């Protein structure tokens, strides 16, 4: 839970960087990229094992996008699929025995999503994406549907949602992973080797559920931003 913080001095401003998050994030990105390269290397009409698995994963994204986004939904697949695959890989990395690698300054390697900076960055990417897509689909009507009292109140509520949606996205993912790690360490203090095991199996379930929730909410936000009515 402790981070390995490196302080960068940039023109008089001290910028602290969580280096352990950066290393584990690169590792998760490398796993996703290598999986992508291996899955698309020898594509054939009769799929092999790896191609069948990756095709069923892609069918999952296509199916959810088809049901929740109305028009031109296939173009959102790159963002949604890479968010889901990265979050799943990152969450599952927390169950690897990475803590046996001792870092200096008391830091420890764990899942990169136990750092709120990473989840907040992903939530802001989602915010920018759906606002951009909404403006491209509806123009200025994205902000103000109709010039009436109800329309102005709705516009203000949606302006507030632009702040609360990324906040809840970021805190939900971060707090689930962080609470899981604290739960495992408390169970480790209670009865080592036996008590953490069921909790770690539960954390594997949580990793998939939280990645699905993040993806579903992203799709729902894109759908409500580009759809005809709210």
């Amino acid at each position, binding site marked *: 839970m402790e981070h390995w913080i490196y302080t960068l001095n940039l023109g008089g401003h001290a910028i602290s960087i969580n280096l352990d998050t950066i290393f584990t994030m690169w590792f998760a990105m490398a796993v996703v990229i290598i999986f992508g390269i291996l899955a698309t290397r020898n594509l054939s009409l009769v799929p092999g094992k790896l191609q069948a698995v990756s095709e069923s994963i892609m069918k999952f994204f296509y199916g959810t996008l088809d049901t929740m986004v109305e028009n031109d939904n296939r173009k959102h697949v790159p963002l949604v699929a890479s968010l889901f695959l990265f979050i799943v890989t990152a969450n599952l990395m927390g169950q690897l025995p990475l803590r046996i690698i001792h870092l200096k300054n008391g830091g420890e390697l764990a899942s990169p999503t136990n750092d709120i900076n990473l989840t907040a960055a992903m939530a802001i990417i989602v915010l920018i994406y759906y606002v951009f897509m909404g403006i491209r689909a509806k123009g200025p009507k994205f902000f103000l549907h109709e010039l009436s009292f109800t329309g102005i109140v709705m516009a203000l509520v949606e302006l507030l949602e632009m702040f609360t949606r990324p906040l809840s996205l970021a*805190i*939900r993912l971060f707090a689930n992973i962080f609470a899981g790690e604290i739960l495992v360490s408390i169970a480790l203090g209670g009865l080592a080797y036996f008590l953490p095991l069921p909790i770690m199996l539960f954390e594997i379930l949580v990793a998939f559920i939280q990645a699905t929730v993040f993806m579903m909410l992203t799709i729902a936000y894109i759908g409500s931003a580009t759809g005809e009515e709210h």
Partner: protein
Amino acid sequence: MVDTATISQMAHLGAGIAIGFGAVGAGLGIGFATKGLMDAVSRQPEVAGKAFGFFLLGAALSEACALYAFVIAFLLLDK
């Protein structure tokens, strides 16, 4: 004036109260979600697989409210 030891004790008390009330809401939410799943499955047993997926999604969304309280409690523990 209040000394720092008292502030620290009160912050720990507040952390306990925060996570307690947060857990009440999330427990109610997951309980209602389970009730809805049981109703749906007992009425139409063939939708069990699909309903369980939606149940997990809803349970994760209502569990997140307890985790917001957990974050607040964790911030209070540092005081």
